[in-house]
C-alpha cells in the first residue's frame, strides 16, 4: 500500500510535467498555426492552411538556416577535432583538466559579451582596416555570412569539443597498441581505429551544435545585421514585432518538424553504429 502511494506521488509530477511542458505548448502552437492574424496583431481562431501556403515568404530565412547551420556545424567539427585530439591523446594529464576548463569557461559567459567582441573585430575599424592598411583593398566582413559563420564557430566550439574529447578519452589506448603491434603505422592506426571509434562523439557533437544552430537568432542578429536572417530571427519578428502569431506558429511547426526528422535520423544512425545506449546518445 505504502509502496503504491509513493509510486503515485512520484508519477504525479512526472505526468503533470509532461502534459504542461510538452504537450500543451505544442498543442497551442499547432492550433495557432491553423489560425489567422487579427487585424491589430495577435491571433484569430480559424482552420486554414493559408499560413503554411505563405511559408515561401520566409524562404530566405529557411535557406540561410539550412545552409549556414550545417556549414557551421562542419566548420566547428573541423576545428574542434584536432583540439579534442590534442587534449585527449597528447596533453599532459596534469594540464588536461586546466585546458579543459579553459575550453569550457568561455561557453559559460554570456554569448552576448562574446559576440560583441566580434562586432568590433570584424567591424570597419577592426580586421578590414588592418587588411586595407596592408594594401589588400577594401573588404566588408561584418553583416556577411562569413561574420555569422565566425560567430557560430566561436560560440559553439566548446559544445563540439566536449563530446569528441569524451569519445577520444574513453577510447581504449591498448587498441592503438594492438594496431601498431599488427603492423599499422601511426597515421593508419588513426584512420582505422581512432577515427571510427570517435564517430559516436562526432555524431553527438554535430547533432548538438546543429540542433541549437537551427534555433539560433542572436548571432545572426548581431553579426549578420539585417542581411543574414535565420528562422529564429523570423520567429522573433513574427511573434514580437509584426505580431503575426498564426504565421509565426506555422514557421515554428515547420522548424520543429525539421528538427524531429533530424533527431530521428541521428538516433537511427547511432543505433546502427551499435552499442551506444539511447540516453547517452541523446546527451
Amino acid at each position, binding site marked *: 500500500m505504502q509502496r503504491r502511494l509513493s509510486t503515485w506521488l512520484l508519477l504525479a509530477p512526472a505526468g503533470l510535467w509532461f502534459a504542461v511542458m510538452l504537450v500543451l505548448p505544442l498543442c497551442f502552437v499547432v492550433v495557432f498555426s491553423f489560425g489567422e492574424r487579427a487585424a491589430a496583431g495577435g491571433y484569430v481562431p480559424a482552420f486554414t492552411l493559408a499560413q503554411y501556403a505563405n511559408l515561401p515568404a520566409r524562404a530566405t530565412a529557411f535557406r540561410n538556416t539550412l545552409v549556414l547551420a550545417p556549414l557551421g556545424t562542419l566548420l566547428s567539427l573541423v576545428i574542434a577535432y584536432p583540439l579534442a585530439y590534442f587534449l585527449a591523446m597528447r596533453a599532459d594529464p596534469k594540464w588536461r583538466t586546466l585546458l579543459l576548463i579553459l575550453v569550457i569557461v568561455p561557453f559559460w559567459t554570456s554569448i552576448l559579451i562574446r559576440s560583441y567582441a566580434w562586432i568590433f573585430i570584424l567591424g570597419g575599424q577592426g580586421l578590414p582596416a588592418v587588411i586595407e592598411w596592408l594594401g589588400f583593398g577594401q573588404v566588408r566582413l561584418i553583416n556577411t555570412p562569413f561574420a555569422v559563420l565566425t560567430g557560430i564557430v566561436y560560440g559553439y566550439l566548446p559544445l563540439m569539443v566536449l563530446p569528441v574529447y569524451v569519445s577520444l578519452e574513453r577510447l581504449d589506448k591498448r587498441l592503438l597498441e*594492438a594496431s*601498431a603491434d*599488427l603492423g599499422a603505422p*601511426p597515421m*593508419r592506426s588513426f584512420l*582505422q581505429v581512432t577515427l571510427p571509434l570517435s564517430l559516436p562523439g562526432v555524431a553527438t557533437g554535430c547533432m548538438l551544435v546543429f540542433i541549437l544552430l537551427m534555433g539560433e537568432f542572436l548571432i545572426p542578429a548581431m553579426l549578420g545585421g539585417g542581411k543574414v536572417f535565420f528562422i529564429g530571427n523570423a520567429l522573433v519578428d513574427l511573434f514580437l514585432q509584426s505580431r503575426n502569431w498564426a504565421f509565426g506558429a506555422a514557421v515554428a511547426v515547420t522548424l520543429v518538424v525539421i528538427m524531429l526528422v533530424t533527431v530521428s535520423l541521428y538516433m537511427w544512425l547511432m543505433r546502427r553504429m551499435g552499442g551506444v545506449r539511447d540516453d547517452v546518445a541523446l546527451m
Partner: protein
Amino acid sequence: MQSQIDSGAKDHTADRPLVAEFRAATKRYGAVLAADALSFGIGRGEFLSFLGPSGCGKTTALRMLAGFDPPTSGDVYLDGERVTDVPAYRRPVNMVFQHYALFPHMTVAQNIGYGLLQRRPRPGRDEVARKVDRALDMVRLTGFGPRRIWEMSGGQQQRVALARAIVNEPKVLLLDEPLAALDRKLRREMQIELQTLQRQLGITFVLVTHDQEEALSMSDRICIMRGGRIVQSGSPNALYDQPVSRYVADFVGKSNFIDGTLTARTATEGQIECASGLRFAGRVSGALAAGARAALSIRPEQIDLAHSARPGAEPVTVINRIFLGEHTEYLVRHASLGDLMVLVARQAEASAGRFAPGDAGFISWAPETGLILPQD
C-alpha cells in the same frame, strides 16, 4: 642470484637457435628500475614464461620485446637483428593482450585480417579471406567470421585475439596474462589448447603471468622474476624440485617454511636449527654456508599426518580441514613451528581415517624431501 638449474634435454635453451635475445636491457620509469640489465635468449619454438608478482618487471620485458617501450640502455635482438629502436609496427612479433584489445567496430574476420591488410604490397582479398578462415579453424571458431566482437563470449574473444596474432605467423608470439579474465574451467581448457597450438605451429611463445599454475602447466621453461631481474630459470619440474631460494619455492607450488640457522652441512645435506631449538635435516645445495640464516622448505604433500606418535614425529593440532575431492588439505598448528599445510591424498585418508578440527595428530616427513634454502 642469476643462476640456471635445468634438467631434461628438452629444457635446454642451448639446444635451440635463438629467436630473440636481451643484452643488458635496462628500463627505467622515472626512479623505478623496471628491468635491471636483463640478458638472456629465447630459443626458437620454445614456450617460455615470465612468472612473478606484479611489479617484478615481467610485463616490461614483454613490452621491450614487442617494441612498445624501448629499453633505457642495452639492446634487444630479434632473429639476430638489432631491433632496439625499431617501432612496434615494424617488428615481426605479435601480442595477445591481457583484455584482448579487440577492435569493437570490426567483425571477428576483420579483426583477424587486420594484420594481413597492413602489409605492403597489400595482399589480395581472397588470400586474406583464406588465411582468416584457416586461423578461425585453428582456434575452433569456424564460421564465426561475420560475428561482432560483443556477440562473442569471453572464451571466444580470447580465441579471436589468439587468431588475430597467429594469422600473421609472427617470429615470436607474446601473451600478456592471456587467461586472467577467464573463469577456472575455461582457463584449464585454454591452457590445453594453447599448448597444443604451440606444438602444431612451432611458433615461439612468450607468456607473462603471475599465476604459477598457468606457468607450470604450459611452459618448457620458466623465468622467475623479482625486482627487474631473473632470479631463476628452468623447466617446471626443475623449479619445483630444486628452487634456489625461499622466494622461488614460495612462488612455485605451495610450500611450508621453517625458519632457522644452518648449523652444519656436507656437499648435499645439512641441518637447520630453529629458534625453539628443534633441529631438522634436509638437502642443501648452492653456496649457503654453515651459520647462515636459512629456511627449510617442505611441500604439503610430503608431510605425513598420523593419529599416533612415531619416532621423530612432531605433535600438532588440526585447525582446519578442506575436502578437495582427490585430496584433502589440512591446516595444522605446531607449538613452535606455527601453522603448516598438509595435503593428504584420498586413498591415504581413506585408510588412515580423517581428522576433524581440534583433533590432535603427529606430522613427519622424510628428511630427503626437506630442502634448506637461503632466506632472501
